[in-house]
């Protein structure tokens, strides 16, 4: 068991390196206030709030920051009569 662990355990440093590279690429942008994904998230929620009164607990935002591609998923439950209330 120990021998197996010694010889076949995958190296962990490459994972550390890759995770840091992706994370820092995003953090450097966001400290300059230009992280696109964050900006999109905020603006999309603003636009929706302008038209519909949404319960904050019914808003679900997911972000996944990748090296090449990031994804942003905004999932909002809009009640049938929400539009009338806002108007």
């Amino acid at each position, binding site marked *: 068991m120990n021998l197996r662990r010694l010889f076949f355990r995958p*190296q962990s*440093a490459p994972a550390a390196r890759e995770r*840091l590279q992706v994370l820092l690429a995003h*953090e450097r942008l966001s400290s300059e206030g230009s992280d696109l994904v964050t900006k999109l998230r905020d603006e999309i929620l603003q636009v929706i709030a302008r038209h519909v009164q949404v319960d904050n607990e019914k808003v679900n935002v997911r972000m996944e920051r990748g090296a090449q591609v990031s994804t942003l998923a905004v999932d909002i439950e809009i009640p049938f009569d929400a539009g009338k209330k806002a108007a």
Partner: protein
Amino acid sequence: MGKVIVVTSGKGGVGKTTSSAALGAALAQNGDKVVVVDFDVGLRNLDLVMGAERRVVYDLVNVIQGEAKLTQALIRDKRLESLYLLPASQTRDKDNLTAEGVEKVVGALRTHFDWVICDSPAGIERGATLAMRHADVAIVVTNPEVSSVRDSDRIIGLLDSKTAKAEAGERIEKHLLLTRYDPARAERGDMLKVDDVLEILSIPLLGIIPESMDVLRASNIGSPVTLADERSAPAIAYFDAVRRLRGESIPVTIPGEKRGFFGKFFGRKAA
């Protein structure tokens, strides 16, 4: 006019105080006049690491508040007569550090010493930003570990935006000091390598300090490691770092990397 250096990292426990003491002593061992200033108000430790904890009378906050003169607060090292310490306050609140006060003290020290080494507290708040505020040179202390590298990146961002030099449109000189490096673990692929950290942070390398028992031994006896054992691996690495700080261009060696078969074998077993 002396040079002002900030030793900083963001993350705590990576070796800022140890490195401040070792670099300060190494510079003074060359005959330069050096003062090491502790900016960690409330959690001072530089006095302890340098073995002067029982001789603290006044501190940085006393000087800033006008309760003591700078010359009264400076403590001369018992072993090196050109090495001085300006301790932080242990009891006062860190809000007692004012921007104007720090500027005055650092300005005065700069005229009397060849090197003013500011030992920054961890974090990115007042104490840390004031420690870096008037620096000409920054030494970013980093461990080959993800959280330390991330925090160093953040600190580099602050150095480029929040220091007096940066605000005046100048560039602050930045160097990486990689501490607690274990070449055997890096070789096995279980620790970030020197090149990994350099590529990610992209600032020039000042030195690599190996993980070593000698560092703990030195702090146990209250002596900078360059004084405690001049021939130990970490001491040699700090002496080399100081030569680079003075502008000498000497190749960086990775401590302990050239080991024979037995060294490798035992290195693995020990880790």
